[in-house]
Structure formats: C-alpha cells, structure tokens
C-alpha cells in the first residue's frame, strides 16, 4: 500500500487527457520528517507545476511524498538532460573504434589487441562555487567512479577550470580551494592529474567552472555495464554508509541558478573520502575481473534512486528495494533521505545470489561495508519498502525514459559584428586604437605572459601528483597534450582538455568548431591521431532563449568539426544554470580529446630542445585577427568582433602531417596570444641558455600587433634539425600546407623577434621565465 498524503488525486479523464494540466493540490502535504514542507509541493523538489501534472498523469494518481522526491531528482535537469537531450543526438557518435558510446557511465574506445580505454568528463561547477575544496574533491571522486564502473582502472585525471579575475579575493579563494580539493582526492587515490586548463575572467567570478575528466584502461573482456539484468539477481550497496549529505544536490543545487548567497546551499554539497574511494576502486576492479558481476553502477547525483532506476531502465527490468537494509551513517534517517542521499564512495553491484558470498568476501577484505538492499524484478517497477510499508511504487520508465524532454524556445545567435580598435582611450597606453610601435611589442609580450590565463601553471600542477602509476611520459605543462604509455600495447595515449574562450560567446558555431579543431591539433602536436572525444557543455539558464540558442549552435559547430575531422564523441555532460542573480557565464564548452600514437618514446614536447634548430611556422601564419584575442582583452578590455573559423583543408593537412612527419623536434599549437606568445612559450620551456631568433611574416599593410598577437586557427610552430628543413617543406607542399621558415634556435638565451622586417624585441629569457613562472603564484599564494 502506497502511503498517500492528502494531496489532490486527479480524475481519470485529466490523467489520460495529456494536454490539460492538472490542478495543483490545494492542501499542503502532511509533514514528513526531513522532507521540505514548503507548499506548493512540487517546488520543494524543484519541479514545475506542469511537470507535477505530468507525474500525476503517468501514475494515474498523485505521487506520495517519497515518490515525488524520486521524480524531483530524476526529472531534474542534472539527471534527465531534459532541455539538452533533444540536441545531443547531433554529435557523431559512431566509428569502428567506439565500443561504448553515449548513455553509459563512460565512453569506451578500442585500442586493439583486446584492450580499450574509457573516458568521461563531468562538471562540478555548482558545488565548487558553494564549497570549493569539497566541491572539487567530490567532482574528482565522482568521475573516478564513472570510469571504474566500466571495469577500467583510472589512469589519468585532467581538469578544466575557470575562475574570476584573481584581483578579487573570492576568485583567489575559489581557485586555491579547488586546486587543493583536486589534489586532496587525486593524490590520495593514486591517479595522476596529468593535464588541463585554467583560465581567469571576470565573467566567472560568481560561477567558477570545474570540469573533471578521467581516463581508464581496461581489457575488453572486463567491460562492465551499468545494467540490472536478470530478475532474481541481487542488488548490493557497497562502500560508504549512507548519510544525510548532498540531499537535493541534483535537483536544487545543480539544476538551478544561484541566488545572491550560494553558501546557504552548503548542506547540499557532499563530502569526499578519497581513502574509501581508493578501497572501493580496488574492490570493484577486482570484482570486475572476477566475472562475478552482472552489472555495476556508481551512486552519484540522486544516489540510490538514480543508480537503481538507471540500471533497471538499461536492462528493461524493475527493482525492489528494502531501505531497512541500507547501512546508514546516522539513526533515524527516513526513506526520502536514504533514497536521495548523495553520500560519496558508494557503488551498486548486481550479482546472482549464489555469487554473493564470494563478492562479500572481497568487500570485507577491503574493509568496505556491503549490504544486499534489493532484488531485480521483471515487472518494470521501482518498488521501495521501508519499515513494513511500500513507500514508493512507480514505473521505472516514468522516472527515466518518460522524463520530460523540452524543446524550449531558442533564439539563433546574431552574427558577430565587425570590430575595429577604438579611436580614443585604449587601456594600455592611452594611444587609442593605434598600432603598436615596434618597441612596445616586447612590453606587450611580457604583459601577456604575466596575465593569469597565459602565465605558467606550474603552481597548480606541482600540487598534483602527476607521476604516480609511472606511465606519465609527457607531464603537464611540457607539451600540447599529456602523454601516457599504455604498457600492454606499447602505444602512447595523448590527452588534452580545452575550454572555449571568447570566440564561443561571439560566434557559438565557429567557437564550437574552433574548440574541437584545437583539441585535435593539441594531440597531433605530440604526434597522436585523434581517436575520440568527450565533452562538457557549460552554459547559463536554458530557459533563456538566447542561451539555448547559443547552446544549440555550439553543438552544431562542434558536431560539424567532429565530422570533418572524423572524431567520434563518446559522451559528455551538460551543465546549465551557471548563473548568479541573473548574470550568466558566456558559453563555455570543454573538450577532452584522446589521441593514440604508436610510440610514446617519440612523443613531442613544446620546448625548443636544443640550439641550432630551424624554426618553422605551419599553416596560414598571417591569417589572424585581433578579434576575441588575449591581446584585445588586455589592451582594450573587450572581447568583440568576428573570430576566424577553421579552414578544414588546413586542419586536416596539419593533423596528417603532425601525426606522421618524423623529423619534428618539437611542436606547439598557436592559440591565446598568437604567434609571438606561442614562440615565446617554446623558448621559455627550453633549457637555460637556449634562445630563439625569429622573423615573423606580415601581409602588406597588416598591423604589427595583429602579426604578433593576432589569433587564428590552423597554425603550429615547430623546430627541425636544419638538414631536415627541405624534407619538411616538401612534405607540407605535398599536403598543400603553407610552411615558412621563421628563424633558428640559438645558444645565447635571447628571444629576438622581428615582424615584417621591423625589430620588435630582444629579451633575456632567464628574466622573462622568472616573471612567467612567478605570475600565478604571486596571485594565488
């Protein structure tokens, strides 16, 4: 018998009618301990009145309080993707190497010889804004579980971070807390953090972004599914005990915009325990390879509810849960709390009853609590018993596949408007929109290198253990992508995480395409072929037609790029409602690119490795604009104009060349800060004493600042031993790729740059290096 509250029960005609929304109940629900009691009842669980009516229609009655909580969580934006699902199908997801595509806990790509790699990216933006240390730490814990749920051993973590301007104390507090939280979890659990990106911009002051990506290796035969097949099989809850933390994390924290005081949401943030996370990881991997499991799913957002219904939904079965069997951290927890708790470090295992003793023995060895909390049933329902009563009895599909899907109104973004440097003012030197004089080029270069977004990130990644597991061949900061060695096949795995910048705000379609192209170029720079990508789409409220319009165009741009470059999307995550007091973040997609290279020992780094090398620029070097550039932001404090879009002929030729050309001693993608910054970075990463003398080409009439700092896609700088220069030129010519000698590396420790024949700067690299490395710690220490 379902415990009913005196809520209005709809009449049958309305229930079947579909179009006419049901009237809301007029009486407030009876108080249930622990359940929020503010009327109307749908608001307390984050549903709209229309959604509440839809629940009533699906059940042919009003839901009980516990049932309503289930719908609130499972129909939240965070769990149901109700505003985004209609568009996510536009990504290309099929390719011969894709073993598991979107819809599972992680995507899986074939590596050959019976081996595979799992990858996934997820956001933990809202919790990190409320409590940066635990928010980021539990983000790492959650993404690790998504990977080992697949039967894969997590081998690498990457993080995409956005904070406000570090001039503001809150941005420093959030940045410091997030970095410490990531270090706390990742270091302890023994998974190296090998890469990522960190950017600083006032637009993220109230809504920092914390996107975490994890990659895992597995043998194909150990692949697990998040499914609960076979009626009669047992459901086991393993790991931490269930407590009162994180209730409403999915429905109220992650699926709404912030009011003025995010700290009031602190109780909805979970607390991570990396030690238990490590034990759970080892136990689950041991079980995955034992063949004893029929299914496995982690408990993340919406806790037991989500894990039980999603596994049942994937298998087309139902579940019966006995909440009295759930090990609780504190006495007196009610059904609502147990079902929706987001306590960390818990897994749901599905196994035949006969195999339980063996499974329990493994859990016991790792000191993990394990309890049989339910059974797979054939009738497609989720039935929940607690203290002798049935507190919920609803169709699994009503919670999962029948969740609302919206095609909210979307307004197509306007075409970006041309921009030209203003005639008056000018933040840098009061010279308005005038071009730089030659000697100012060096000063601007130093300013750009000391800007928090472009400065060296050693302060961040030196706090992360990036070597544990002894597979890290190219560590963070050394190359355009991190490179791991994959011991069983001897291949290298390249990993790059990129987040969209100003171009995504001005031209969502072009920005999305640029981002995918940049990720592909990054793994190509180290010598890999792009093999697949995961993504995370960070946006403001989808209820704003302009935001949703930009979201849709971003997806279209990314999808077009994936098709052009032949890169499948293995899954991803959408984070909406990154908005505080009406102020939303600009569109910020993130791409986690995975590439494969035949020999990790030949992976390229970005640093000029020696003196006496010939430096070349590949691609259309003078195809660059100040629009949406780091220089534009630094000098005029704006992000405006028409960013260039990728030229697919150039991008394809670059990927082909970089993956196959043998003579390149280093390679570095040209992105924020343009050619001058890219070349300076190659020199700054080099050993003491190595210098570079460079002459940049200019179009007739091209502004000097556009030559130095203009930004445009499809440009890569490389160095080769001079005797191999002709071979490089010939290879490029054959591919129709522009290739131009820019200069040489030297032994004088000096970066000397001229542009269009005019001298620009002569800098002592040792001093520049000190400023570049100290810039970030000066802000964040």
């Amino acid at each position, binding site marked *: 018998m379902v415990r009913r509250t005196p809520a209005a029960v709809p009449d049958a005609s309305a229930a079947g009618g579909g179009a006419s929304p049901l009237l809301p109940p007029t009486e407030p629900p009876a108080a249930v301990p622990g359940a929020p009691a503010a009327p109307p009842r749908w608001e307390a669980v984050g549903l709209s009145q229309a959604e509440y009516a839809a629940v009533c229609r699906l059940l042919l009655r009003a839901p009980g309080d516990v049932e309503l909580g289930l719908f609130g969580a499972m129909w939240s934006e965070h769990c149901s993707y109700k505003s985004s699902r209609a568009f996510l199908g536009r990504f290309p997801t099929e390719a011969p190497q894709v073993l598991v595509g979107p819809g599972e806990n992680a995507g899986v790509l074939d590596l050959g010889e019976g081996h595979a790699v799992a990858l996934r990216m997820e956001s933990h933006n809202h919790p990190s804004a409320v409590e940066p240390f635990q928010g980021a730490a539990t983000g790492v814990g959650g993404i690790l579980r998504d990977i080992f749920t697949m039967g894969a051993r997590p081998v690498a973590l990457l993080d995409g971070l956005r904070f406000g301007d570090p001039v503001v104390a809150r941005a420093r507090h959030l940045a410091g807390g997030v970095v410490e939280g990531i270090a706390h979890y990742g270091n302890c659990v023994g998974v190296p953090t090998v890469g990522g990106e960190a950017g600083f911009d006032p637009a993220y002051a109230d809504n920092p972004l914390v996107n975490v990506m994890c990659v895992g290796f597995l043998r194909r035969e150990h692949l697990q599914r998040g499914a609960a097949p076979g009626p009669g099989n047992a459901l086991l809850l393993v790991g931490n005990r269930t407590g009162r933390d994180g209730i409403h994390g999915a429905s109220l924290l992650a699926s709404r915009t912030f009011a003025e005081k995010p700290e009031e949401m602190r109780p909805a943030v979970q607390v991570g325990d990396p030690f238990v996370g*490590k034990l759970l990881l080892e136990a689950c991997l041991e079980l995955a390879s034992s063949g004893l499991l029929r299914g496995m799913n982690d408990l993340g957002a919406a806790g037991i509810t989500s894990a039980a219904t999603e596994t049942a939904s994937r298998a087309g079965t139902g579940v019966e849960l006995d909440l009295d069997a759930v090990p609780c951290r504190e006495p007196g927890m009610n059904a609502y709390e147990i079902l929706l708790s987001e306590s960390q470090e818990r897994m749901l295992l599905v196994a035949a009853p006969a195999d339980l003793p063996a499974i329990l023995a493994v859990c016991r060895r790792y000191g993990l609590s394990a309890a049989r909390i339910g059974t797979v049933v054939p009738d497609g329902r989720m039935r929940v018993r607690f203290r002798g009563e049935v507190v919920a009895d609803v169709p699994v599909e009503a919670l999962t596949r029948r969740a609302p899907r919206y095609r909210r109104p979307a307004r197509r973004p306007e075409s970006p408007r041309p921009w030209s440097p203003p005639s008056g003012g000018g933040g840098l030197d009061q010279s308005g929109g005038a071009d730089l004089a030659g000697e100012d080029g060096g000063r601007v270069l130093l300013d750009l290198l000391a800007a928090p977004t472009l400065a060296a990130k050693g302060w961040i990644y030196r*706090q992360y253990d990036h070597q544990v597991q*002894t597979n890290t061949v190219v560590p963070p900061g050394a190359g355009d992508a991190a490179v791991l*060695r994959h011991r069983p096949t001897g291949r290298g795995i390249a990993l790059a995480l990129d987040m969209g910048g100003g171009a995504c705000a001005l031209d969502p379609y072009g920005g999305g395409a640029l981002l995918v192209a940049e990720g592909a170029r990054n793994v190509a720079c180290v010598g890999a072929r792009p093999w697949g990508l995961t993504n995370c789409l960070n946006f403001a409220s989808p209820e704003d037609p302009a935001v949703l319009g930009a979201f849709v165009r971003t997806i279209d741009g990314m999808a077009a790029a994936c098709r052009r470059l032949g890169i499948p999307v293995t899954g991803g995550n959408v984070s909406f409602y990154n908005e505080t007091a009406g102020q939303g973040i600009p569109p910020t997609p993130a791409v986690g690119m995975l590439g494969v290279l035949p020999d990790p020992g030949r992976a390229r780094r970005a640093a000029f490795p020696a003196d006496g090398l010939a430096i070349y620029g590949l691609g259309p070097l003078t195809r660059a604009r100040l629009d949406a550039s780091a220089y534009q932001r630094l000098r005029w404090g704006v992000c405006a104009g028409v960013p260039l879009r990728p030229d697919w002929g150039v991008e394809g030729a670059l990927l082909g060349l970089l993956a196959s050309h043998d003579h390149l001693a280093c390679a570095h993608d040209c992105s924020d800060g343009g050619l001058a910054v890219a070349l300076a970075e190659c020199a700054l990463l080099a050993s003491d004493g190595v210098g570079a003398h460079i002459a940049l080409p200019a179009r007739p009439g091209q502004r000097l600042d556009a030559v130095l700092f203009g930004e445009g896609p499809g440009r890569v700088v490389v160095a080769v031993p001079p005797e191999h220069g002709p071979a490089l030129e010939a290879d490029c010519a054959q591919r129709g790729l522009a290739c131009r000698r820019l200069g040489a590396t030297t032994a004088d420790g000096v970066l000397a740059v001229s542009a269009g024949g005019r001298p620009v700067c002569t800098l002592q690299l040792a001093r520049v290096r000190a400023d570049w490395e100290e810039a970030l710690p000066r802000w964040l220490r």
Partner: protein
Amino acid sequence: MVVFPGSNCDADAAWAWERATGGAAELVWHERDELGGADVVVLPGGFAHGDYLRCGALCRFSPVMAAVRAAAAAGRAVLGICNGFQILCEAGLLPGALARNQDMRFHCHDVHVRVERVDTAWTLACAAGQVLRLPIAHGEGRFHLPSADLASLLAAGGAVFRYCDAGGRRRAESNPNGSLDDIAGIASPGGNVVGLMPHPERAAEALLGGEDGVVILRSALRWAMAREGDARG
C-alpha cells in the same frame, strides 16, 4: 612490497624493482603476518589508511609489521619510500618524524639529492657524493628530530640522502619542504633499514624522464646477494 589499505605506489615499486634488478616482486597485503622469506622489503608510498590521523600512524598495528620488524632485526634490506618512510618512523624502526611541508602545500616535481653514505643496503651501488635526480610527491615530508636526537643520528652516520642542487651543493632553495639539515633520507645504525621521501621507483626508466633511481634498487639486490654469500660462506 607491503600493501596497506591506501598504498598507491605498490605496483609502481614492483614494476621498477623487476625492471631494475630482474628479481621477482610480490605484493603482500598488510593482514599477512609473514613475508614469505623475502630478502628485500619495500614499504611503498601512498596514503595508508587515508593518512587521516597522522601519516603512517595506523600501520604499526597491521599484522605484517611484526614481520617487517623481524626482517629489519635480521639485517635484511628494508626501504620505506615516502609514505613508507613515514610508516617506518611511526613504527619506531627509524627515528624522527615527517611534518607538513614548510609552505603547507603538496609538492610534485624532481629534486636532486646527494648520497652521503654508501655502505647502506640502499646505497651500496652508489658513488660517495653522487647526485641523483629523483621525483618527490608529498605534502608531509619535512624531516624533523629534536636537536639531541639529530646529533646522535648524525654521529651514527644516519643521514643518507640530502637535498642539494644539480651540482651537489646544499642550498636553501634546493630543500623543497624545510627538512632539518636538508635530510631527504636516513638509515638505521646497521644501514639495512632506509627511509627516504623521493621516489626512486619513479626514476627507473628513461622513457619517464630518468633512471637515477635504479642504482638505489640495485644496491639492495647487491646487499641481499652479499648476505646470501655470507650465509653460504
């Protein structure tokens, strides 16, 4: 290789040992009370028991520690790396303690250490004064000891590794964590038990950026073979 709950460098240490020495490595769970007659014992790095109390503090209650003590007393080569060093100190097999790094932050990067003694089980194959480039990865590696105890440690030649620059000179900026007297690793009076904060197992392959850790691992092999020779002789 002793595995505590939360150890996370056990597989790395086993891999490096087998590559560097050709010997077989076995992982031993902390609940076992014997080491299967191992000639060499390594307590690898990690976060045993989560390091929630004090780093390494809870491990001395593990059944395996009696066997580790017995191996140490019998003169077998015992090495504690990072968290393993902290465990050896907490268990009283080595003096001192490892406190929070001076700047309160976790450090993961390469350092240089100078080999101060070459008659220990873990430095036999080194040259005196040899400078090794090794990675560190710890938040609590600041070696500390009351001054009287430090004097007796030094008098007994207990300081085996000291932080230095690439040229072997001790400099303030070469000490990453504020360790007393630049100490990166110490030895028992008999020289068979050594603890150090840097990770030699992470510097055992050129592909990963360095091989300076190999000489440390091979030292223990030589120590074990010499003991075997003595026993036969």
